[in-house]
């Protein structure tokens, strides 16, 4: 053993470097994820003076009818949205994958719109459409848009692209041979749908449903803007913490919010594992054939959905340019004069851009490095398994819970990292931690596509792992890195959930400003700020598409067939 190591000092060096990297990554995950959540859990069983009081806080919570009601409301909303979004996204994805309707790429693009906006934006759009002064007020199916109805529609719109991406992937992976076999055997279309299409997509559907369920539970932008008197857990936690500075009760609601998310997360992992087993490497991709009736129906359905999404977002944009809704509809830019309003003025937007940029930059590098260490390190199996598990944890922790945990953990005077409290740094770090998992999976997938033979060749050529990383792995993974960075950028510029507890006067953010302006009754300026965020996100998204396209053309040519 000793002799071996001496023979190849480079391998030894890089090996211990990677080992240290893995340990560091684990420590990082502990500090920025596990310990804050732990602080929240422990605070929920303490009284105001920090003494342990068991489950007394929870007992109080469950004895207060108004509080209990919001837990119930949350579940109803989450269930309704999950049903609505999963089924509508399935139909949309079905149209994209299983029909030959025209304009697929346009529909694919339009479905992404809500991802470029903070969740408050569709809610604001709905107010201008269906509010008491809404342009098509009468069309709203419920009595009033303020309340459960408005929340369900707003959140469904906002979650739609998230569900669509997952279901779309599931449908596009379906095996053509099964459909062929069924057809040859004379199975009617409706039975093929039930026995081939649905089962193949079922894990995607389950996964999408669970993602939507978690997103809906944790979002508070929509219920805050359009919920009226309808309280949910997410607004409740905010009310306790910001409104009453009652951190113990905030922690209690946080735990209640964490539990269903953990459950959904556990279920998702369970089904994911099953799905991997059912995959076949020799599957042939499905190619739809023309069918006039089917294609027309698909086209109509997708148009209705896409127009709906565009109308809601577009309405918020239009309202931001109106002088005095609804009495003076002339055009103005006055709503963009943010310095005269709550929310932190234009500085908030600059802060948001800075925050999103830093999150994208630092986050991409860190996450990619962690994925690389985990994927390409040999040995240290247990540590790597632990790291892998930790990397999945952020999916199960709602942003509000993470943010509150950060207050408890980092605002403690004995914490050596206390100084990051109230700075841009804590906003960046919390956002990276909150959105860790999806980029991590993207990076891991990209790394898996790089043959391990490279590593063997590098070893035999006495090229260090670090050099291999720089010269081969990183350049090959550039498209994935771009995907990761744009994902992080968009997430950072639109998020409110964790950062709403963590921003300070010097680090106000645009998305938080939308909330504050709406809260002060300045709905049109809130719409204006949402428009600014939306436009920024769109520009970044377009730059990303351009970059990716040119990158594929130049450096990845060898990978294309």
């Amino acid at each position, binding site marked *: 053993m000793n002799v071996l190591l001496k023979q190849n000092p480079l391998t030894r060096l890089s090996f211990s470097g990677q080992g240290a990297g893995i340990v560091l990554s684990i420590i990082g995950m502990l500090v920025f994820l596990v310990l804050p959540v732990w602080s929240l859990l422990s605070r929920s069983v303490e009284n105001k003076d920090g003494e342990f009081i068991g489950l007394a806080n929870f007992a109080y919570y469950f004895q207060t009818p*108004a509080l209990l*009601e919001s837990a119930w409301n949350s579940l109803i909303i989450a269930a309704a949205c999950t049903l609505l979004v999963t089924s509508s996204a399935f139909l949309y994805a079905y149209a994209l994958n299983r029909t030959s309707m025209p304009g697929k790429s346009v529909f694919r693009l339009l479905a992404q719109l809500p991802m470029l906006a903070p969740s408050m934006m569709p809610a604001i759009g709905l107010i201008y459409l269906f*509010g*008491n*002064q809404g342009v098509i007020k009468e069309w709203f199916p419920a009595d009033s848009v*303020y309340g459960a109805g408005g929340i369900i529609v707003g959140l469904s719109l906002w979650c739609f692209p998230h569900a669509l991406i997952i279901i779309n992937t599931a449908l596009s992976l379906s095996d053509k041979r099964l459909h062929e076999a069924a057809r040859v055997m004379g199975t009617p279309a409706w039975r093929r749908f039930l026995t081939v299409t649905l089962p193949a997509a079922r894990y995607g559907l389950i996964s999408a449903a669970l993602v939507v369920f978690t997103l809906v539970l944790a979002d*508070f932008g929509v*219920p*805050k803007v359009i*919920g*009226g*008197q309808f*309280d949910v857990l997410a*607004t*409740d936690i*905010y*009310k306790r913490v*910001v*409104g*009453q*500075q009652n951190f113990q009760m905030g922690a209690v609601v946080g735990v209640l919010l964490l539990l269903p998310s953990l459950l959904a997360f556990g279920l998702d992992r369970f089904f994911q594992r099953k799905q991997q087993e059912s995959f076949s490497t020799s599957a042939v991709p499905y190619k739809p054939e023309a069918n006039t009736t089917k294609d027309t129906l698909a086209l109509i359905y997708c148009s209705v959905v896409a127009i709906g999404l565009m109308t809601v977002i577009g309405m918020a944009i239009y309202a931001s340019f109106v002088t*005095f*809704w*609804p*009495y*003076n509809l002339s055009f103005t830019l006055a709503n963009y004069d943010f*310095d*005269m*309003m*709550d*929310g932190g003025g234009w500085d908030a937007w600059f802060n948001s851009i800075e925050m999103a940029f*830093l999150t994208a*930059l*630092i986050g991409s590098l860190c996450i990619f490095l962690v994925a690389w260490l985990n994927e390409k390190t040999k040995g240290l199996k247990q540590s790597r398994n632990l790291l892998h598990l930790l990397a999945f944890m952020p999916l199960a922790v709602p942003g509000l819970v993470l943010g509150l945990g950060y207050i408890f953990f980092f605002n403690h*005077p004995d914490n050596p990292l206390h*100084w990051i409290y109230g*700075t*841009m*740094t804590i906003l*960046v770090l919390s956002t990276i931690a909150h959105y860790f998992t999806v980029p991590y999976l993207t990076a891991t997938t990209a790394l898996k596509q790089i043959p391990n033979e490279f590593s063997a060749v590098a070893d035999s050529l006495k090229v260090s792992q670090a050099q291999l990383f*720089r010269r081969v792995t*990183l*350049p090959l993974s550039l498209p994935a890195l771009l995907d990761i960075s744009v994902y992080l950028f968009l997430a950072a510029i639109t998020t409110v959930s964790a950062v709403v507890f963590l921003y300070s*006067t*010097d680090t106000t953010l645009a998305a938080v400003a939308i909330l504050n302006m709406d*809260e*002060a*009754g*300045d*709905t049109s300026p809130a719409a204006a700020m949402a428009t600014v965020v939306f436009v920024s996100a769109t520009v970044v998204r377009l730059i990303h598409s351009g970059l990716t396209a040119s990158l594929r053309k130049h450096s990845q040519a060898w990978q294309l067939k």
Partner: protein
Amino acid sequence: MGYKTVLKGLLPLAATVLSTGAFAGKTELTVYTAFEADQLKEYEKSFESAHPDIDIRWVRDSTGIVTAKLLAEKNNPKADVVWGLAATSLMLLKQEGMLQPYKPQGVEKLRKSFVDNAATPSWVGAEAWVASICYNTVEGEKNNVPAPASWKDLTKPVYKGHVIMPNPNSSGTGFLDVSSWIQMFGEENAWAYMDGLHQNISRYTHSGSKPCKLAASGETTIGISFAYRGAKSKKKGAPLEIITPTEGLGWDLEATAIIKGTDKLEAAQKLMDWSITREANTMYNKYYAVVGIPSVEKQVPFYPENIGKKMIDNNFEWAASNRQAILAEWQNRYDGKSDPK
């Protein structure tokens, strides 16, 4: 490839993240406030031109939030000065021993009711903000909802679902409404009144200006708010009538105080001195009819006339010492219908 250049580009950025901000030679005062956001820029500019060596760093929120924040930070105060917070809130902070008494220059020119009555006052008032009802005439006609003349009118069935008021737990305006009703109607009758009112309220908002802004844009017909917000919206062209109910109007002072333990006492005192100068009072009078120095008062455009006569004989001491009990009772009775926060 060019990863080294990328790395070099990264370093200064990382430095920006890590550094806590540029060093400035000025004294930076952290000022907590519930002044309206559209007033802050002007107030800050006027003060800083008189005292160029001091830099104001605002932390703004609704009255209840600022109060809760100050109380939560009691053992580790972050604010140096409070400029523009309800006098009832400041009295509460005084009772908690959180204020630094100081007798600002020129305090004798102020109305008696605008100064804390201790020998060395703990707070001094800037201006009075007064409860009012914002009534949207267009929506009123459309919905067949007549203009109310009194507070009691609002409990009539015709107003059901057409009234929005601020949550007193977060909003200072909401609290002055509730405390004035209790003072005017008596404890029992006031709660009975609010029970009736609650039936007609479509929702309680977080901030005191929002009901009036919602009335201005026709989202509701009636918003219980304060006069300044109504005047401001009217100026913008909103079809509003600002109604001052016959029973009388609740009001509170927005006042200034120094937080005990500040290490910028000298600058804090300068701000307190300046906050009651003639210049400052003239500035407040652009927005509020009743200010600390009566001789500067001029009619505010679109503001209801003679509003001073309808202001009730407000017992601040009573309101301050009962504030928490009133808010707890209110929350117990009505909180299910509140805006989040």
